[in-house]
């Protein structure tokens, strides 16, 4: 038991959805984590200890009296009003959550920011003027900084591990935790925004069931249409880093399978896209958010070409909510 990793989890400026999502894990969660060598020291939503008993666990961890390994924070850091941290005083302690997190982070071997709020500020920082003074653990939107500062390193020598996503997929968290239990994680396994590459090396676009529509620029025009959501409905799947279309959500889903665009919830500042979420900003009819890795001239040329070559089936089905024109049956045998 004693070499098991001890995991301490706290929640602040967020919706609690990353924990709720975690509980959707495919397999019995507690047994899997225990089997992988991870024990919960305390989690506000799951643990038995309450009130003074819980505060004692946190105090011992923060003072160093009871060493622990992993600190998971869920929710943005609320520094307001006026730097006081009073927008979130940890219940029963009278002290700002930001103070608790700073003290605990200094003792943890690894610090995980669970969810985009915690990583970059997310929706909690999106109120005009940011009156909550919300920020991420080591980022403030796109910029480094945040509560712990750009130079922060946890005991194991790593920056904050940003499991970005709004919410996070349970697999992203579980696989990251179990990587730590397997002997750690090296900096090269994080991308340049601090996200575990085990899910952030892919683009959402990879494996999207709408790829055929994308190829022919056969685009959806209204919610529930089957076509590609990039041209009109704001899809950022060709730019957003995550494996949402190859790692199923809730057994069989993804945003795109669900019929709505990727709003790039794993990216810093996704919450303020500068345009309505469900519309694609365009200049002269061309989407301004072009696919990562694709020069604009190519895109324009390819789009024109593929539009001119769109099969009837693809064109028709793009504007319907279930296929109206079916693939033809080859009568001569497949070659």
């Amino acid at each position, binding site marked *: 038991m004693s070499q098991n990793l001890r995991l301490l989890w706290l929640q*602040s400026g*967020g919706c609690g959805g*990353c924990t709720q999502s975690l509980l*959707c894990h495919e397999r019995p969660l507690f047994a899997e984590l225990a089997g992988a060598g991870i024990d919960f020291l305390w989690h506000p939503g799951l643990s*038995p200890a309450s*009130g003074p008993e819980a505060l004692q666990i946190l105090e011992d961890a923060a003072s160093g009296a009871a060493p622990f390994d992993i600190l998971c924070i869920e929710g943005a850091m609320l520094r307001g009003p006026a730097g006081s941290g009073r927008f979130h005083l940890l219940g029963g302690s009278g002290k700002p959550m930001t103070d608790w997190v700073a003290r605990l982070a200094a003792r943890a071997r690894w610090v995980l920011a669970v969810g985009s709020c915690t990583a970059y500020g997310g929706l909690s920082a999106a109120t005009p003027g940011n009156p909550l003074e919300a920020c991420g653990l080591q980022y403030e939107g796109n910029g480094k900084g945040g509560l712990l500062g750009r130079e922060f390193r946890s005991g194991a020598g790593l920056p904050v591990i940003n499991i970005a996503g709004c919410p996070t997929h349970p697999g992203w968290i579980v696989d990251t935790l179990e990587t730590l239990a397997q002997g750690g994680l090296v900096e090269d396994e994080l991308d340049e925004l601090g996200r575990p590459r085990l899910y952030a090396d892919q683009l959402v676009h990879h494996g999207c069931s709408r790829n055929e529509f994308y190829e022919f620029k056969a685009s959806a025009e209204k919610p529930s249409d089957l076509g590609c959501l990039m041209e009109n409905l704001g899809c950022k799947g060709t730019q957003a880093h995550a494996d949402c279309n190859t790692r199923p*959500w*809730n057994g069989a*889903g993804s945003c795109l399978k669900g019929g709505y665009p990727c709003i790039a919830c794993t990216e810093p500042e996704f919450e303020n896209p500068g345009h309505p979420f469900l519309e694609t900003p365009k200049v002269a009819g061309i989407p301004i958010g072009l696919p990562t890795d694709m020069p604009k001239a190519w895109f324009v040329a390819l789009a024109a070409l593929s539009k001119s070559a769109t099969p009837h089936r693809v064109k028709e089905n793009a504007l319907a909510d279930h296929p109206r024109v079916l693939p033809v049956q080859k009568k001569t045998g497949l070659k």
Partner: protein
Amino acid sequence: MSRRILGPFNRVEGDLEVILDLDAGQQVAAARVNSPLFRGFEQLLLGRAPLDALAIVPRICGICSVSQSVAAASALAGAMDIRPTANGARATNLILAAENLADHLSHFYLFFMPDFAHPAYAGRPWYEATASRFAALRGSAAGQALPARAGLLKLMGFLAGKWPHSLGLQPGGTTRALGASEKIRVLAQLRECRAFLETTLLGDRLEALAGLDSPAALAAWAAGRPGDFPAFLALAADLGLERTGRAYDRFLSHGAYPEDGAPLFPAGFWQPDQGLTPLAPEQISEDSRHAWLVDEEGPLHPRNGLTRVEAEKEGAYSWCKAPRYAGQPLEVGALARQLVAGQPLLQELVRRQGASILARVTARMLELARVLPAMEGWARALEPGQAYCAPGTLPNEGQGAGLVEAARGSLGHWLEFRRGRISRYQVIAPTTWNFSPRDSRDQPGPLEKALEGLPAGPEAPPLVQHVVRSFDPCMACTVH
């Protein structure tokens, strides 16, 4: 008089602090409920495109994310003057019901029952079995309940893309049309869920529990029956949980799950002595007297509501406003919904002894038993090839209200937009009702009232914990 501060109050959704003033006999003389976290979503929405609400409001709350979406979609549908298609309405019911039932399971297995594994109960005849089954993180029940909950939420993978935080709920319906095979998968998933409820939780057919019409019938049904809910009923009888946790005995429901014409559970306002009266939404107001928010000119209807921070305010002790109905505090939740819907067992229970821990938990179980069969019906009624989402156009100016039922009770969104931008957005969440602070007339909120008189000294059994959790609070919503 002495004071106890309970916090962080865990195994609730979000952060909570309860301040108790105890009398000489160590009983609660007065309770104050503090929601210690502020989130500010109502300001965040100002100036956004109206349809952006569909992306933003689910993120108010990770546990009732879909309920938020449905409220916003319904407020927008009002402003657009459209109605969801028949398939869209059925799919919305399925999605909302999946969330609500999953929340009931989380509440029972993860939040509520582990308190009975508390060492204070060592020595009760049921203690050993309860502790080994329900102890937090270690008990045997979670290993079964979490996969069952995840299974129910697999409906989201088919119908809503993902959970939480789906953009699939739209004013005109839903964005995901099911194919023939997916409809079969949804029905199979519902069968699996039924099997868990009947074998593990209830120990009987859903219909058998749903048909019980009196507390006596419930007691007879439960005697000696295997199953986690019957096990709870046995310990509840031992501890007298039918006598603990009464608040004001005034109950409100916005009505849930619209079906062609009438909803599955109707809207209304119910009191034990006066019975049912129709819901009068214009009677709703919010009072900021004891919140760290500007008082404005007294309580306001949410249609005209404002949310402006005043962090240094005399007499304030929470970030939560105090919603009132005709000036009175009231209780929302599964119990309220079932009382308004005329469930005879619960009505008799509340008429006799008032609302209680037992009544609130039993109401959730009855809902599981009543809603799952309805879900099977909605899934079977999905018509292949028919539209799921009606098109619509958003006017430049407009307003709307979306009144729905989340697992924890009545949720309302009030929206107004001008020149294509949101100019006002007000939310009243279920726990805002139940865990409200005092108001300008110093009336305690429902939980504050329910805690009065309970033993709460250092040696007391965890009754306060049971009462707080019997409401299934969600603080993230409360402090939107």
